[in-house]
């Protein structure tokens, strides 16, 4: 209905006439919005495991498809999905090609003592259902500034996203050179070895060097760790090429030091997130005089419980059946953000907090540790 003042305005009748002339917009806009979300960013997917490939004694690749066989959400090579199991969740990189929308392969290596990796490798068989998030994460080639000549330092199962990146280059015919330096403990531990070697032999844009830490007598290739000199020997001068690093946590500070030794600028390095720190108390800013193995009381959603100071709040909450949304579990994605209403928590270096988070007491529970008794708004 027109405002009482409207007729006083010059031109009001022309505007009203335009309104009256308009064909009715009968589109179902909310359905269209929902379709975008379902296509690109579904909150949860229930997927069927159609194949399980035993890659090595400790590693399996699970092939996931939609039950109705339709395409999965698109992803960028290097991204991960989070798998929900046993009251918690873990993020796994997709190792398959983004050119193949009908399935995702998740390559999972047993973590010694790891609850979910062992559960998946031991119990998940074809026909089972896994609940996942959509694809997430920023560890992917960004054509706006990563360049068309890149290096990837992988350790162990950290080769999974590299595998996807290589398949992306070949399946999409991308004009990109990719040099994988892949460190494994022993020659038996190397994942995708035959496929990697075959691809490298066939495609001049793809180079693969295996580096074995504990080589057997049969091994003739490079040995030891991915040292600065070995990186330079194998990859040549880095010259500002983007370097991706993915592997066990210990690889990150090590690789950073080696790359620094080569004069490689930090902003030309991308590290894939890889969980909460194995030992948060080893970080220099762990509060002094705080014994990690002592307990405090956490209160959230009307429950109070005791937990160790060196246990991430997210894990402690999940133990009590309180499950904040979570994905990367590495401090990065912010989905497990909680607000600390009372008490003090310690944020590990991995926590990508915002200026306002610190001001208003928000933290990422996956890499936050209760230093005192705390009350959380979850």
């Amino acid at each position, binding site marked *: 209905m027109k405002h009482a003042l409207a007729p006083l305005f010059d031109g009001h009748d022309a505007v*009203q006439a335009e309104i009256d002339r308009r064909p009715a917009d009968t589109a179902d806009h909310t359905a269209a919005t929902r379709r975008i979300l379902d296509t690109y960013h579904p909150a949860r997917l229930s997927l069927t495991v159609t194949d399980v490939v035993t890659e090595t004694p400790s590693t399996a690749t699970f092939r996931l498809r939609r039950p109705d066989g339709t395409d999965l959400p*698109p992803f960028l090579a290097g991204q991960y999905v989070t798998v929900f199991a046993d009251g918690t969740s873990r993020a796994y990189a997709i190792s398959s090609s983004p050119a193949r929308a009908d399935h995702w392969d998740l390559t999972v290596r047993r973590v010694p003592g790891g609850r979910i990796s062992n559960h998946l490798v031991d119990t998940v068989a074809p026909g089972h259902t896994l609940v996942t998030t959509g694809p997430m994460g920023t560890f992917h080639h960004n054509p706006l500034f990563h360049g068309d000549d890149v290096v990837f330092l992988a350790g162990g199962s950290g080769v999974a996203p590299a595998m996807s990146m290589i398949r992306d280059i070949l399946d999409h015919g991308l004009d990109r050179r990719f040099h994988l330096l892949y460190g494994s403990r022993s020659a038996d531990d190397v994942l995708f070895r035959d496929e990697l070697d075959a691809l490298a032999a066939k495609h001049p844009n793809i180079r693969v060097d295996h580096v074995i830490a504990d080589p057997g007598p049969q091994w003739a290739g490079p040995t030891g760790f991915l040292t600065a000199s070995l990186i330079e020997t194998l990859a040549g001068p880095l010259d500002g090429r983007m370097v991706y690093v993915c592997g066990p946590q210990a690889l990150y500070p090590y690789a950073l030091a080696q790359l620094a030794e080569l004069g490689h600028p930090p902003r030309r390095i991308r590290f894939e997130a890889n969980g909460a720190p194995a030992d948060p108390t080893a970080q220099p800013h762990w509060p002094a005089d705080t014994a990690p193995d002592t307990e405090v009381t956490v209160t959230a959603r009307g429950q109070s419980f005791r937990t160790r100071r060196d246990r991430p709040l997210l894990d402690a909450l999940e133990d009590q059946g309180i499950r904040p949304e979570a994905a990367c579990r590495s401090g990065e994605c912010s989905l497990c953000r909680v607000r600390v209403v009372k008490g003090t928590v310690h944020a590990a270096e991995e926590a990508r907090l915002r200026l306002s988070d610190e*001001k208003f007491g928000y933290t990422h529970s996956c890499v936050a540790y209760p230093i005192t008794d705390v009350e959380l708004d979850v």
Partner: protein
Amino acid sequence: MRTMTDVDAVVIGAGNAGLTAAATLQRAGLRTLLVERHNVPGGCATSFRRGRYEFEVALHQLSGVGLEGQGFTLRGLFNKLGVSDRIDFVQEEDLYRAVVPGQHDVTLPADWAGAADALEEAFPGNRDRIERFFKLLRNVAFWQIAAMRGLPGDDINPVLFRQGLRPLGDVLDEHFDDPGIKSVLAAYWVYLGQPPSRLAFQDLAVTLFAYLEFKPWHVRGGSQAMSTAILDSFLDAGGEVRFNTAVTGIRTERGRAVGVRLDDGEEVSAREVVSNASLPVTYGMLDASAVPHRIRTDLATRRVGVSGFILHMGLDATPAELGFTTSTTFVNADTDDERTYAAYHTLEPARGICLSSYDVAPIGFAPSGTTHVGLMTLQYSDLWEKLSPAEYAKAKFAYAETLLDRAEAVVPGIRDAIEEVDVATPLTMARYLGHPGGAIYGYDQDRTENWLFRDSLRDPGVPGLHLAGSWAGFGGFQPTLEAGHRVARNLLHAQPA
């Protein structure tokens, strides 16, 4: 088993308008429940981290804050809500720098005389026209604000009625011959999403007035710091908030809104329901029988508005090294704003960009020696929605390159400084806002969307339902922050004693 919460008012969505509505209601003594899908307050008014940088998502320049002592300011609203001392405002010196390479490069300081001087220097011989235009603009803005505050028609200067609803382009053409000066003066049209031929003069007048009279500002800690400060005002007054919770339906009884249903199955009963969700989503949450025919007819003649395409960038150089002299820089291919607008429906190379450098007047998001930049253009979502998922990423990065190409005019070598960049498309906006078309300003704010013809704020059509946000009025930060407060105040006035 279903549980039932009983409150005086429920607010759907903790965007700008939802936050100020909730804070106003709770502080006036209504037991208010605020429900938000995400895990933080703010809606658009938020930020995120990449590498060493934090990125402001939506706020370019906050209008209307004003200086201490000025009346009718956002500062005054924040005082009323008890949040002024929780927000550190950062003042910007200039409105913007407007560049058409090879034609003009003009920086307008944020004051009337300085802006007039800068325009005269760039376009000599226009002094008198500029003075006349500014005088008209001030008049129209003043009387427009008075009219919206309810001043009777007889008391309003007729200049508003003669000029207010005219297309901006007509008013500019009447005052100026040089297409360059018209283009510079109209530059803020992109903050409203409609080109000079389709925008009511009064809408640009109010916008320019709000920045020139009350200065452009930002917030230390970004718009998220402001959102959270308002949330805390609400919580301190005893309000209850549920994050990570979606409203799935608005409950009605005998045609009146009586509460909401939540995605966990809980039902909330409330005397008043304030929706900060988009109008299509809000009315979609009501039983079809509860929405009167005239409301449906009205909605069907409104057009889902323009979305945005943004590169959130962390650049490894200082603003000065990069060549940023102002917080806000508009770069256009030429002075043909109509063609630039038409291109929002295509993927032809971006013709007009807005560069927001958040470290000329630092808001604290970039490490020392670096710069946080938002590089933006407007885009409708239709083409993006039609892309096949397999084509999406390629199209996104290819289009992003065209914005970088355009940015080269003022930041030569910008690509070499990139340390982080994340790209948001209209589909990204749709994902995070839940808005149809990823619209960032609500419906297209052309002349048909003018408050004279649309009544969503005053008459939502369903008793007990109140609408607050960009879809029910003006888009943008100041308008939505004020709208939430106004809707809450009107609701309080209508309360039984």
